[in-house]
């Protein structure tokens, strides 16, 4: 049975500190816990503010956004670990909150931080996971062996995982999530902390798993990963979807595609308007008096002209940074902030 993912106007408001798993690290709490008898209203943190998504069965879909954007909370709701404040989430035909056991059978989850069973060996982690999902002993052993082989963990299979490196733990977490062959696989920041070689192995495995018709939802703040892997993606920020489409569509939606980030010495706002007349410049945005972002359909060839305009006005050009069409530019265009900030 193929299963997709749907959410309708999902909202989540935390009234107590959200779990680290939900990764809402970007927020700060207004008031510390009140001492004394007076009851202070609990600080409310809006993690999700009306997320609606339709992810078709068999799709690799990516949630892209900075820390604290609401990616992990969305995954938390879809994987039964976070109760939505409002709205609905569906895996296949099942509404998640009211059909938790049925949903858990359909999904595999790789959490953002390692959560392997430290009391078991790598092989036991896989076989016990299989047992939780009712696989026969023969089937468990067979699948565990194949996954250990695929994730290059065979030589450490019978060791306790306590001494494993971060990359090995991450590979084993993904193997475990695939152990019961779920229809929908959630990967929360799967390649964080992986070396480039392991990252490529991971991408290959994800594509392979997807080729068998499985739906994959992954979160990342790595544009390269979203670009390379996803068929469609949603950019989310402050709990809202700010852009949705294929990587190509989204990149094409940035005016011009190229972005020149310029920093100047003291200058007037009138001065920035002069750049609008340069050929190929689509949009000029001032950045807090320190300079401007130029969205344009060319990059390096614009730099001499920019320098000319500046020297003609007697303004010092301090710094130029050119980026080619990318999802980073898209995020910046929509939010005025860099994904890495």
């Amino acid at each position, binding site marked *: 049975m193929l299963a997709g993912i749907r959410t309708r106007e999902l909202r989540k408001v935390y009234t107590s500190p959200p779990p680290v798993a939900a990764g809402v690290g970007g927020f700060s709490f207004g008031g510390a816990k009140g001492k004394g008898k007076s009851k202070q209203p609990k600080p409310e943190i809006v993690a999700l503010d009306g997320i609606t998504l339709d992810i078709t069965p068999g799709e690799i879909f990516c949630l892209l956004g900075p820390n604290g954007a609401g990616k992990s909370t969305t995954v938390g709701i879809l994987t039964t670990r976070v109760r939505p404040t409002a709205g609905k989430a569906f895996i296949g035909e099942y509404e998640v909150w009211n059909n938790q*056991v049925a949903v858990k059978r359909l999904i595999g989850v790789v959490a953002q931080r390692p959560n392997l069973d430290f009391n*078991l060996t790598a092989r036991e982690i896989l076989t016990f996971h299989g047992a939780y999902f009712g696989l026969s002993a023969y089937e468990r052993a067979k699948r565990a062996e194949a996954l250990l082989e695929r994730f290059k963990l065979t030589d450490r299979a019978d060791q306790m995982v306590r001494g494993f490196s971060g990359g090995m733990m991450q590979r084993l977490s993904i193997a475990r999530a695939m152990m019961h062959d779920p229809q929908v696989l959630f990967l929360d920041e799967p390649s964080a902390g992986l070396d480039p070689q392991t990252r490529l192995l991971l991408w290959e495995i994800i594509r392979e798993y997807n080729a068998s018709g499985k739906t994959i939802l992954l979160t990342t703040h790595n544009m390269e990963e979203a670009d390379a892997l996803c068929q469609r993606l949603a950019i989310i920020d402050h709990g809202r979807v700010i852009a949705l489409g294929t990587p190509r569509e989204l990149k094409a939606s940035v005016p011009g595609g190229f972005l020149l980030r310029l920093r100047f010495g003291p200058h007037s706002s009138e001065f920035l308007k002069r750049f609008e007349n340069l050929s190929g410049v689509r949009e000029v945005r001032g950045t807090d008096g320190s300079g401007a972002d130029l969205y344009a359909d060319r990059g390096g060839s614009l730099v001499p002209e920019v320098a000319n305009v500046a020297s003609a006005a007697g303004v010092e050009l301090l710094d130029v940074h050119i980026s080619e069409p990318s999802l980073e530019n898209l995020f910046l265009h929509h939010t005025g902030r860099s994904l890495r900030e």
Partner: protein
Amino acid sequence: MNWKTFLAILARDAHVARRNFVALLFQTFLQPLMFVFIFGRVMVGSGYLPESYKSLLLPGIMAICMVGTGIWAVAMPVIAEFQFTHEIEDRLLAPMEISWLAVEKVVAGTLQSLAAGLMVIPAAWLLLRPGVDLRVPHPLLFAAVAVLVALFSATGGLALGCSMQQTHIGLMFSLIVAPMIFFGCTYYPWSALGKFPLLQRAVLVNPLVYASEGLRATLVPQFPHLSLLAVLGALVVFNFLLFTMGLKKFYGKAVS
């Protein structure tokens, strides 16, 4: 309810307990058996305590071992798995209602507590003999009390483990477990507090009192003890309250 999943998770706990068997053995029995040796053997042998103290002490030691084991077996993993290793998450995602995972923890803790209680009787008897006078007139009643005590230790472990921060583990033992043991009628019968009427009433809020007095009533009924009916009733009430509280807190930790 998905029994396959439930039993698989129980099998995981059994596997881990087997792997840590030797450490568990020392952790459970070393301190109580040293106590048995010093008080039951040295103090009695040198004439500072009467011979009958041996028989009085044994049910109390059994209660300490059972309650200690159950609390440790449930509370420590709950604290570590939720707050430190997060390893419980894989089981929270197993195809079973989350509350059943709390039930599984209680079942695993109860079984370990019962095993500890049954193992400490022959061990203490070997250390103390001769002079231990165990009568056990109603084996079924003894079994019922033992099961209720084991359940109390596991539900207590669940409630404690789900209420404690990882940084407060030391406090949990010095502020809760240690006073519970000393004011739990483990080393003396409840009637011995007759000269301290206020304290005698106050200790009745301590569930361990009913555990030790219950085991005393069924193992060595020749000593004064609380009425068995009161013991059974109190243990049932405590088990119910602790389980309800533990379940609620467990759910609160599992789902945000």
